[in-house]
């Protein structure tokens, strides 16, 4: 297979280009939000629930009088941060465990797969709710819970990819050459799984942003006063009959971010000749 250049990946199809653009805009906004915002996002600056369009508060204020635009722009930072840290850990560990389980086989593989099966039997949000119940509602607990929750699925996918590579000649050659186990895994297997690892990272990233915001919406994730889109929607429901924009704006932000990520990762998967339409839960 000809290896696609980064440019070819980014411009794979109109859908991919839309996705990449959306993600780029979100990344810029998220990175520069602290200098863009007119007010501190947790400070009460005006009357409660003022309408958008005023000179001071462009998008009005929320239900306790904080500047809505500032909260909106800052609202992705925490969930994106949690998602990035947890997915980086999950995919890194999953790569090592999945590939080594495929290569070593035997009891180690069996034990790993039974643990994976056990996690996959517990639905994602319930799994995290359980850990949040046990360890309390904090950012570290949330990050760990999400990493744990995404680990098994990633192990399964990466392991099955590794299983297709292990019978190939160059792995056998390395073994006969007398290469050590870590060296075979690191030098022969990991590089040949990197495409699936990249797609896995992209897909699970978008999925975990969905999960973090859903958890915040449910009151299990990020806690107030930190601004978060999921949390803002949950707060907006109280005034759903009169102030629908307090719901629709964060809804648009979270949706465009995840749509962008998924369109982009679908393009990435297609450009690498993989199928993104596998089960992610």
């Amino acid at each position, binding site marked *: 297979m000809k290896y696609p250049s980064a440019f070819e990946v980014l411009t794979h199809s109109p859908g991919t280009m839309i996705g990449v653009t959306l993600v780029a805009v979100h990344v810029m906004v998220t990175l520069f939000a602290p200098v863009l915002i007119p007010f501190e996002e947790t400070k009460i600056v005006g009357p409660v629930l003022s309408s958008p369009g005023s000179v001071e508060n462009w998008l009005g204020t929320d239900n306790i009088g904080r500047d809505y635009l500032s909260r909106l722009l800052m609202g992705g930072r925490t969930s994106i941060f949690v998602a990035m840290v947890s997915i980086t850990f999950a995919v890194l560990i999953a790569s090592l465990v999945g590939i080594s389980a495929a290569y070593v086989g035997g009891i180690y593989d069996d034990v790993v797969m039974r643990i994976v099966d056990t996690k996959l039997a517990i639905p*994602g949000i319930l799994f995290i709710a359980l850990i949040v119940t046990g360890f309390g509602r904090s950012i570290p607990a949330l990050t760990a819970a999400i990493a744990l929750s995404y680990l098994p699925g990633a192990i399964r996918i990466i392991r099955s990819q590794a299983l297709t590579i292990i019978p190939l000649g160059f792995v056998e050659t390395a073994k006969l050459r007398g290469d050590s186990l870590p060296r075979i895994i690191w030098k022969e297997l990991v590089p040949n799984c990197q495409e699936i690892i990249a797609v896995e990272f992209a897909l699970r990233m978008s999925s975990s942003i*969905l999960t973090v915001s859903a958890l915040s919406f449910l009151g299990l994730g990020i806690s107030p006063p930190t601004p978060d889109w999921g949390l803002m929607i949950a707060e907006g429901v109280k005034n759903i009959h009169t102030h629908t924009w307090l719901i629709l704006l964060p809804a648009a932000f979270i949706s465009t971010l995840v749509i962008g990520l998924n369109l982009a990762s679908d393009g990435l998967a297609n450009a690498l000749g993989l199928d993104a339409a596998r089960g992610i839960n």
Partner: protein
Amino acid sequence: MLWILIRRLTLSLLILFLAAVFVFLATEVLPGDALDVFLTADDLAVMDEEEIEEMRRDFGLDRPAWVRFWDWFSGVLVGNLGKTFIHEVPISEIIWHPLINSVLLGVVITVITLPVAILIGILTGYRRGYREDIIVSNASIVGYSIPDFVIGTCLIIVFAVWMPLFPAVIIAFSDSPPGELLAVSLLPALTVIIGHIAHQSRLLRAGFIETMNSEFVERVRLSGIPEGRVIFRHALPASVIPTLNSFAMYTAGVLSGLVVVEKVFGYPGLGRELIEAVSRREVHVVQAITFLSATVVIVMNLLADLAVIILDPRVRSLKS
């Protein structure tokens, strides 16, 4: 074939046991015991050591972890899920009605999702690469990208605020008759169906394309069978049956979705009960609901496995 069945059954039981161990570890062993989780800092401020120790003895939490685990697990196996901290109500009593209500909603969702997803999967798979496939495929990415709670809240805004056709909050009790609940389950069901159809149809599309390119479809075609029959009689079963393997993931997805959507609409199901239990720190209720959900997923997976073994001659001959 009998051996496959026995193997699958043993594995399912093992996983059920491991799930129980995990549920117990995460709530009652690693963070301390159930009482450590239940009592807040405020509670601890007004209680002295002796009172806490007495409570601990009352709930039998002074025994070693493995004794408590066995006590809990053996109770769960016979349907005794334990009691709540507040008022000591049997948990099976609390979650019985919500469970039925959630099953009802889950069935409504599945009955609508699967046929529509299969149809869209075939359609886009058959017209692979054409304009309609590209449009539907991108639309389905959008469909599963929008969070459930956003879809749900937007449906409320459209159908309850802008066009007052439905009440914004469901007024139904957990022991309302099924007919009444069915009537209010429309918007909650619709909310999760969008994402599930988008996801399942993409899985089916991939399977269908693979089947249509296989030799046996080519052979069926060459023997002069009309295209419609090739698709529905030959290619469809061959591509749908293998996707039954992902049925466990689908079930888990529905259960996760239910938690969110029941909260959005105030539907009196297991998910809403779970969220309330988490905020009240009722460890045993959270344990019971999580373990029950895992059991549902494991049983559904087992049933799907059996269905594949019975329906798919390839699996039957390959493994026996």
